[in-house]
């Protein structure tokens, strides 16, 4: 994982517990500023600046909405996901990371005012008392990779314990679960892992936990009563993809019974064409993500050929069903046509999945 080399603290965050912990953990001397550091670089970062932005940490209070509806993607079936952004950026380094095309800040940001986020969530719950929101904290930042500094997981678990009809998802590529695992919970905080075959982890997901360590951490969570979930996303095509992804499915199934897994989402590599420039600038040894045969989809993102994607999805779905038909599978950011080809059903026809796709009406803006 990337080590921080510079620490900036907003004056309003100076006395926060997080700031104290960050200083203690990193040993860095904070520079106090109410202006975003390196603001002259804001806009489209170069590859070099993007890499540097992972080494600069800015602790500040967030002033906008914390809680937003996941924008999904044009034409894809929407699974009613909401995101709670407690920071922006990631200290790991996946070659395909969508943040490369999204982040325009030259610093990693952690918001220190989680109480304001809880106040906003409480208001949302008051406005929509029956809505069963699924809220994820891993959209613009890995939910757990900086959690040893924020300890937000513990506060979130405690908050959601009081709101049992809601679901919170921690999404991660780390194995850092031990600091929250003993926190009393209500079974509505799902800890999920983005997983890929170890070959892809080694070659594309730099600084992340190994597949085995992720699955072991998931096992520890399940053993402590936390529901777990997996995201086989993005599936990446390479010559022996089938063997490797089948092996990944076997590894999941050998460690988790279907009833221990809340959902398993499957998606394939995709990114906006504008991200190619930064990919070219930041290219490491593997050129797979940049040089794969990708075509512009109807949502404006580069994707594998529709038939190839479906072949990949079907192979994973089949492998799961060879173990048990009970594993709750769904496709992430895919068209109705892909659902039909893969499952021969639309999401709202599949038991255990359809509830996720029932529309929730809120006034909350999209991300």
């Amino acid at each position, binding site marked *: 994982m990337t080590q921080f080399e510079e620490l900036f603290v907003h004056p309003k965050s100076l006395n926060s517990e997080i700031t104290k912990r960050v200083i203690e953990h990193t040993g860095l001397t904070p520079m106090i500023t109410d202006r975003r550091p390196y603001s002259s670089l804001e806009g489209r970062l170069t590859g070099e600046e993007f890499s540097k932005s992972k080494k600069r940490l800015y602790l500040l209070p967030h002033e906008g909405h914390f809680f937003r509806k996941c924008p999904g993607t044009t034409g894809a079936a929407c699974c009613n996901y909401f995101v709670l952004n407690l920071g922006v950026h990631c200290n790991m380094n996946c070659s395909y990371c969508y943040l490369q095309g999204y982040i325009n800040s030259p610093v990693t940001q952690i918001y220190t005012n989680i109480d304001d986020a809880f106040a906003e969530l409480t208001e949302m719950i008051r406005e929509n008392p029956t809505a069963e929101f699924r809220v994820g904290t891993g959209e613009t930042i890995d939910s757990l990779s900086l959690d040893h500094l924020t300890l937000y997981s513990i506060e979130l678990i405690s908050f959601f314990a009081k709101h049992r009809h809601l679901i919170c998802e921690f999404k991660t590529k780390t194995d850092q679960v031990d600091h929250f695992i003993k926190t009393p919970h209500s079974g509505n905080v799902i800890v999920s892992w983005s997983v890929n075959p170890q070959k892809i982890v080694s070659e594309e997901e730099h600084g992340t936990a190994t597949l085995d360590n992720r699955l072991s951490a998931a096992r520890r969570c399940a053993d402590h009563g936390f529901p777990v979930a997996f995201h086989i996303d993005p599936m990446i095509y390479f010559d022996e993809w089938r063997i490797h992804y089948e092996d990944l499915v076997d590894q999941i199934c050998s460690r988790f019974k279907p009833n221990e897994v809340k959902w398993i989402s499957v998606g394939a590599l995709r990114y906006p064409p504008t991200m190619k420039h930064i990919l070219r600038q930041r290219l490491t040894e593997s050129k797979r993500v940049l040089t794969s045969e*990708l075509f512009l*989809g109807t949502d404006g993102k580069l994707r594998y050929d*529709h038939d190839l*994607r479906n072949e990949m999805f079907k192979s994973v779905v089949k492998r799961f069903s060879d173990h048990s038909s009970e594993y709750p599978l769904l496709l992430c950011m895919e068209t109705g046509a892909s659902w039909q080809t893969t499952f021969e059903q639309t999401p709202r026809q599949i038991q255990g999945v359809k509830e996720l796709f029932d529309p929730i009406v809120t006034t909350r803006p999209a991300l």
Partner: protein
Amino acid sequence: MTHHVTTTPMKVLIKNAQDLDWALNFHPRRPWPKPLPIVVGRNDLVVAGFDRPRDQVAVSILQIDEEPMALLNQLYDTNELAPLERLRFMKLSGAPIELNLEPWSLEFQNYLDNRNLGLRVLQPLDHLIDWKESLENTLMKLRLSASQCREAIDILADLKFLGRDRTSWQDLNTENPESWIRSLRQLRFPKTANQDQQRQQKLDSLPWPRGVQAKWDRQGDQGVLVLQSRIGGPDELKKALSRLQDMSLDKEMWEKQ
């Protein structure tokens, strides 16, 4: 009402063009209007009329006693300059620019500017400097449209990252832009191109009703079957539809290699 009256001293003179300083020439695309004199700022730095011959011993100049950069900013509206022309202009003031223009000939830069390609589209050029000569020659010879140019630059950069050699694309048929782009796509997406070709061959082998043509067409991330028909009348239409339905139900025929 306030009237702004310029008090900057200016005068019209005749000078030897070789005595002027042309260092601020950013090669504007539009020629300076013929009736107007060359404009120079302090230290005889030319700010307008860069396209005038420099070997004339007597040229008419308008000399303005002002900082040349300030004059340039008054004369040229950056919003009206084409993307690469604007970069050349910005470079004069030492502003950081997003693309390395040095390797590319002015003729090529103007070729791209004539297609009004944005900087984002042109950024892959930074990775294509090794192929400069062939790239400039090929693209300019082909007279590509803006969208063809955009696609070609992107594909060529991908080919570079795929480790392909210049010769892989240099010898492609350059008879017309469409076929060249098609060949370039085949180089860039060989697996999909091959698969699409096989599907076309399969379609060609099928007994389509009279007047019906079938084509396998790539539309972004999907390959689609495009049927085109020339039907004489309702009876023929009925027959064709019935035949197409029979074909659609014939699983064995579709699966046969």
